[in-house]
């Protein structure tokens, strides 16, 4: 298979470059140090890549076997609307992730870890660019959506943390541990989405995925490898990143990752329309199983560093016994990382606003549950807006003032925000959703 490159029309390309100058100011540093850290590797290029020679027939769903449309107008209307939402959501996550990473990038203690994240950010920018290219290249999207291409691109580039489509991209990072854990857990969800979109019934979307997947493979490593290294250092008594810090970061991000798959009961429409090969629950379970493996590997790294005289099978036995609750050769359960239960700290999907603990235990009393959460989540996150908004909604659900469905709708989601977009010369103000607002623009919740 071969790949061809394409650029956005100049005004949109320039808009992305201006966006990059605001939100990725270290981009030039990346290019200046490219050869030092990535010798002989192709230099980063801001462009769209389209894989040639891919399957040209619909691979799943009601239209399986039929030629894949190359224009949005040739898609069934329902599929086109689903896909338009998916492209916007994908673009939003890519730009949103850069906005999250940038504020704590400078806090990295290790130069290599930092440059890996910086490269990842540049590639996420390219992924966002790829999605904008899909919207601009096919003129049918404007007619189908009722928004001009210019409006659609401006809308996406105007989003800031707090307004992105998926709630994981509306949560601020508190330290570089978040940068790394986000790569390990949230980029992992991205990998699933990209892999599922690779069989999209819309040929341009399918052709966009292979290069994004190749780049995403490194992004996951940029999360997993530092976690493994930190576990080793923690085992040797180093004072920087502890296993407890990583545990709390996993507790913070895994629930958001699980929710990115959508409601556990859903996904059938995307399968029927040929846009994805798997329903939400199946994809979510596979993702969870991967996280279990990831965490087990990190725990093994810890045990082997702490007890280097052990063989691999002996270390595996120690991990299993400690996770089961034993203290083995001085290693306590709290020294290792555990994967939270799937229902823990959830605010979307089937378990939304259930008071479920990190080990799957159920809480009857709100105050007991909040005390439990305080012990399981990073301190800096507890002091933030996102946690405050969640607790506020949970209190209302517990008090019968709000249904779960209404509480779910209050959680961070798409809203158009005011701001000057790099691709227009004017400030654009839009009406906010009159429901509760958060993300830096919020009013304190009513008592």
């Amino acid at each position, binding site marked *: 298979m071969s790949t061809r490159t394409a650029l956005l029309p100049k005004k949109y390309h320039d808009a992305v470059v201006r966006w990059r100058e605001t939100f990725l100011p270290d981009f030039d540093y990346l290019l200046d140090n490219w050869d030092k850290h990535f010798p002989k*590797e192709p230099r980063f290029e801001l462009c769209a890549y389209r894989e040639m020679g891919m399957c040209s027939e619909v691979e799943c769903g009601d239209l399986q076997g039929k030629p894949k449309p190359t224009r949005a107008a040739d898609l069934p209307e329902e599929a086109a609307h689903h896909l338009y939402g998916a492209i916007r959501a994908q673009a939003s996550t890519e730009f949103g992730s850069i906005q999250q990473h940038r504020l704590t990038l400078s806090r990295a203690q290790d130069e290599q870890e930092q440059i890996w994240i910086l490269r990842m950010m540049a590639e996420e920018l390219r992924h966002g660019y790829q999605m904008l290219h899909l919207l601009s290249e096919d003129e049918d999207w404007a007619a189908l959506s009722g928004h001009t291409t210019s409006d659609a691109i401006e809308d996406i580039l105007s989003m800031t943390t707090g307004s992105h489509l998926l709630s994981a991209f509306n949560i601020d990072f508190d330290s570089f541990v978040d940068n790394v854990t986000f790569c390990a857990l949230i980029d992992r969800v991205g990998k699933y989405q990209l892999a599922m979109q690779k069989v999209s019934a819309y040929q341009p979307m399918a052709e966009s995925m292979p290069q994004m*997947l*190749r780049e995403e493979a*490194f992004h996951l*490593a940029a999360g997993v490898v530092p976690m*493994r290294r930190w576990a080793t250092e923690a085992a040797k008594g180093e004072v920087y990143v502890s296993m407890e810090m990583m545990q709390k970061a996993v507790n913070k991000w895994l629930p958001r990752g699980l929710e990115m798959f959508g409601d556990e009961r859903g996904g059938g429409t995307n399968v029927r329309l040929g846009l994805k090969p798997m329903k939400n629950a199946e994809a979510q379970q596979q993702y969870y199983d991967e996280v279990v493996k990831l965490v087990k590997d990190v725990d093994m790294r810890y045990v082997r560093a702490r007890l280097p005289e052990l063989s691999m099978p002996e270390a595996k036995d120690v991990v299993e016994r400690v996770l089961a609750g034993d203290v083995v050769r001085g290693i306590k359960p709290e020294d290792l990382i555990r994967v939270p239960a799937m229902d823990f700290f959830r605010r979307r999907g089937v378990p939304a606003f259930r008071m479920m603990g990190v080990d799957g235990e159920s809480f009857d009393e709100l105050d007991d549950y909040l005390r439990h959460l305080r012990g399981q989540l990073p301190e800096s996150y507890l002091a933030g807006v996102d946690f405050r908004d969640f607790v506020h909604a949970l209190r209302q659900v517990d008090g019968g003032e709000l249904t779960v469905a209404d509480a779910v709708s209050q959680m961070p989601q798409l809203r158009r925000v005011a701001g000057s977009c790099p691709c227009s010369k004017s400030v654009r103000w839009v009406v906010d959703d009159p429901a509760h607002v958060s993300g830096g623009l919020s009013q304190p919740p009513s008592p």
Partner: protein
Amino acid sequence: MTSDATATEVKIRPMDELDIGDIVAIDEKIGGEYRPDVWESRATYYLRRDPDGSLVAEVDGEVVGFMLGEVRSGEFGLDETTGWIDQLGVDPEARGQAIGRRLAAGMMEHFRGRGATSVRTLVDEERDDVRSFFDSLGFEPSTLRPFVKKL
């Protein structure tokens, strides 16, 4: 690219970052040395360069072999696009199932897809097992010879 085969179900798939632990374990079984740092660096390098170009073999969900490589051109006077097999290992307990051969087949299919017209590797002449493996795949000694100078 994945493939399933024969009496023992051997699945060949691209390596990912979650395979690092298994690769470390196989390497330790072969060489007796625990080297997680080495494989973390190597795996990350290959995932950056060409994540589809390095493969692992799975039997019953367990990784039992790996082969890491990539397509390169323009080095050592070789202008032709060349696939390189750089690292390989098969769990000693899983030998006899043609795992190395299946991995090599997968790598060569990928190299062809990337436009490679030949595939190369470097073999330590003191490793008869590795040499006979590549002989069995049809590799031949090359006129391009490795030279070394200690600094």
